């Protein structure tokens, strides 16, 4: 590779590389600005966040995070003075605005719901997906192509259209607003991705390994367990992360089918309001906490990203 390109007549010239690099870097920096703004806003005070012109330099404060995790009530200065000394930074900041902390907000339970539902559905989808992908990859399944198309097509259904009968079904079954209901639903949506991705990964593992294992006296099941699964770990991990990201980000089903106990973070974050409208620093704080795991996963996944977003069709 390096030898041929060094003398290649088709390699881009140093100049064109420089220009391309400059444009790409400019695009990357501009496209990342909204995210940096979210991060910056989460460390502003409410007055700073709505200042005109927008403040780029500001005194950082964790008031947004305080407001995210608490609910507050307005009190008279006399009442606040009659209280003991403030306990901790949040208490102090809130009192400066003539308020006292009334209790914890719903953010933490909603965030935990997101975690439980995302991990639960990912586990189920990857478990079912691995089995099915192995079945489709190694055995002659009648109508395999039709079944695979059927599995994939479920992914393309408009969520609101699916939500209408699911809403009625869950109401009958008592699954409305439960974590179990959401886990089942997200598993069903994710299993199509899991089957398609994992089939690609398992197709790449040579059959000879299992055949050798079976000649050594392993049953098919043992061969699957001892030779295929260990080789497919990278693929399974990548698939799991894709399922996790989908379930973590999902909004439409969550907004329509959950309202209280099982509500996840995406429908909750937009409802964070302060006095006189949206409390933007608190929203930004919630958004930041919500986005950080995805950033980490994107970096971990960067080599498999292409495969994941095309259902395993493009492998590079």
């Amino acid at each position, binding site marked *: 590779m390096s030898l041929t390109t060094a003398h*290649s007549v088709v390699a881009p010239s140093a100049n064109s590389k420089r220009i391309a690099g400059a444009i790409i870097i400019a695009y990357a920096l501009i496209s990342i600005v909204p995210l940096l703004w979210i991060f910056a806003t989460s460390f502003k005070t409410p007055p700073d966040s709505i200042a005109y012109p927008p403040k780029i330099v500001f005194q950082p404060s964790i008031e947004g995070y305080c407001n995210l995790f608490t609910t507050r009530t307005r009190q008279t200065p006399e009442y606040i003075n009659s209280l003991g000394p403030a306990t901790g930074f949040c208490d102090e900041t809130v009192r400066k605005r003539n308020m006292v902390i009334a209790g914890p907000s719903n953010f933490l339970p909603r965030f935990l719901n997101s975690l439980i539902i995302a991990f639960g559905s990912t586990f189920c989808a990857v478990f079912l997906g691995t089995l099915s992908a192995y079945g489709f990859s190694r055995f002659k399944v009648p109508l395999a192509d039709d079944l695979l198309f059927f599995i994939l097509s479920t992914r393309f259904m408009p969520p609101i259209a699916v939500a209408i009968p699911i809403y009625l079904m869950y109401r009958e079954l008592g699954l409305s607003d439960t974590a179990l209901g959401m886990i089942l639903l997200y598993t069903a949506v994710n299993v199509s991705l899991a089957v398609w991705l994992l089939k690609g990964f398992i197709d790449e593992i040579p059959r000879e390994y299992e055949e050798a294992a079976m000649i050594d006296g392993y049953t098919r099941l043992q061969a699957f367990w001892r030779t295929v699964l260990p080789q497919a770990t990278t693929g399974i991990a990548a698939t799991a992360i894709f399922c996790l990201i989908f379930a973590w980000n999902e909004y439409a089903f969550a907004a329509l089918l959950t309202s209280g106990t099982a509500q996840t973070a995406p429908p909750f974050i937009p409802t964070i309001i302060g006095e006189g409208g949206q409390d933007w620093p608190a929203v930004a704080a919630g958004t930041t906490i919500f986005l950080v795991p995805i950033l980490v996963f994107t970096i971990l996944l960067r080599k498999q990203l292409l495969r994941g977003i095309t259902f395993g069709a493009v492998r590079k």
Partner: protein
Amino acid sequence: MLNRTAENVARATPEPLARKVRGISDKGLAWLFISPTILLLLAINIFPLFWAIYLSFTNYRANRPNEVVKNLGFANYQRILGDQDIWIAMQTTAHFVFWTILLQTLIGFTLAWLIDRKFRGHAFWTTLILVPMMLSPAVVGNFWRFLYEPQIGLFSYVISFVSGIPPTSIQMLSNVSLAPWSIIIVDTWMWTPYVMLICLAGLRSIPEYIYEAAEVDRASNWRQFWSITLPMALPFIMLAVLFRGIENFKMFDMVNLLTGGGPGSTTEVASITLKRQAFESWRTGYSSAFAIILFVAVFGLANIYVKALNKVKQR
């Protein structure tokens, strides 16, 4: 003597049973592995689908479960096809899909083409560009409301700074002619990286010797681009276009949080109309019929999509 008995027994044992001795038969295992997935999809996707088909022929309302359900035949479908609001929603959707795909394809392909020069550090910058598409459209869309605020929003401020228009008059979300563009901008910002990534794979799939041959034949760069680069990357571009087309046709989350279909119904794409009919007006039967129509449309697109996928796979 003993050997012969063993042989006879082996011969007499039917084939599937012989395999069963060493575990489950391959066929049985295949079904054991595949059926849970199929069953789950039947329960969570297909059964509700048939329920929706049934409801689409009735006047059922989910907020009045005890009322007598009347069979309307095809009346719901007839009303939808004659409903002005539905056609406006479909037009809004078409406008949204057309412009997002056009912008994303143009920008995405250009970016991929530039990244393919493999300048120093391209891997890092590519990863950075990819970040927006991994994020939750709902949570990020919600934050864009803040960026779009007239005056205090960063987006309005930058636009007024560049263009000289007073910042209070840049009402991205409440101006009837700007609101459709506000959702197009956010969608393009989020999903251009997606198109870029697939285009990049297409460009990298073109073997270098073709360019070398063209160079030997003294084909100009312009000619090489139109005769080699574009045609060979085209299946990948189509794949990206189709996928974005399907996704944006059913777009809900980002638009719902950014404009909620407003002002009025200027950004009311099909999914928003469906949600308003089904979960605000509670016209369950009517909205089920609309959902079925959308299903059929998406299913047709998905069919084309899978064919395109298989074509790309063969390369």
